[in-house]
């Protein structure tokens, strides 16, 4: 199936395919953490990491990161009630989702690297 996808990629030069996927992921991470927005970079970093989140946001951010199907209207209401604007919540929910996914991506790539190294080591002996 490679051939049917290659046309649009040619103009982008010799960047290896895997690097393009990782670069696109990194660009998303960078923009949600540091791009123009209403929430501060510190608030976004905490939502991204699901760590040190203020109490009124803990349920919402924790659910987005670990139990997304259980997010409720009440989670948003609690956050709005403590003064967060809709734009801030838009940003912080996205940071929580991108952060949780980034940790999965990193864990997967690290396990793959470990498997590859140990396989090569096994082949060498």
């Amino acid at each position, binding site marked *: *199936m*490679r051939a*049917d*996808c*290659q046309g649009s*990629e040619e103009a982008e030069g010799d960047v290896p*395919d*895997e690097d*393009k*996927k*990782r670069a*696109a*992921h990194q*660009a*998303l991470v960078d*923009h*949600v953490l540091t*791009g*123009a*927005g209403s929430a501060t970079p510190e608030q976004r970093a905490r939502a991204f990491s699901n760590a040190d989140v203020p109490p009124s946001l803990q349920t*919402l951010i924790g*659910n*987005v*990161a*670990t139990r*997304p*199907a259980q*997010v409720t*209207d009440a989670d*948003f209401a609690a956050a709005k009630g403590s003064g967060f604007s*809709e*734009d801030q*919540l*838009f*940003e912080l*929910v*996205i940071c*929580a*989702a*991108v952060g*949780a*996914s*980034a*940790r*999965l*991506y990193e*864990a*997967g*790539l690290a*396990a*793959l690297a*470990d*498997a*590859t190294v*140990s*396989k090569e080591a096994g082949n060498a002996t």
Partner: protein
Amino acid sequence: MRLDILNRGYSPGTKLLFALIRAFSGYPVPDAAKLVFYRPGFYGAWAKKLTHEAMRGPSAWSVADRELMAAYVSKVNECAFCVGAHTATAGQAYQDGAKVRAVLADLDSAPVEDGLRATLRMLGKLTRDGKIGAEDMREVLSAGVSHQQVEDALAVCAAFNTTDRLADAFGFQLLSPEGFEAGAKYLLKRGYR
């Protein structure tokens, strides 16, 4: 959606575009598409680029296989909107909806190749447990899947773990079966750009 800005906070030009899409397609713009139009410089533009690269960029996995991975990851996340959207898209891409339904019902007995089965199993474990080991990866590699294919599958997993979370958090409205099929046709024709 749960934030009013995602229902109403669009520019007049974007609202016109949504109206045109509705008029020509016969279906309202899905919430998944609306989300990427809201302040696209913050999330939408970058998410589209990642998702398109993962789902339609060069890969030894077929488009159908990657759509199946998206559906499978979404099932593990219990994300009804994304399961509906990518079950329909994978079904059309394979021209075999029964195969997709079989994978989602019982991966172990589904009629797919061992490499794809092992990859789906690994993506499911990573998504469910939040961690994965070298031994899990060795099982995938020993089923004939290349290192690059595992990386490609992990990119699909990253894109859809984000989308699934946002679909559930913001509360994407489910489409009718016909709406999901129409969306699938669009995604196979145009991708995620």
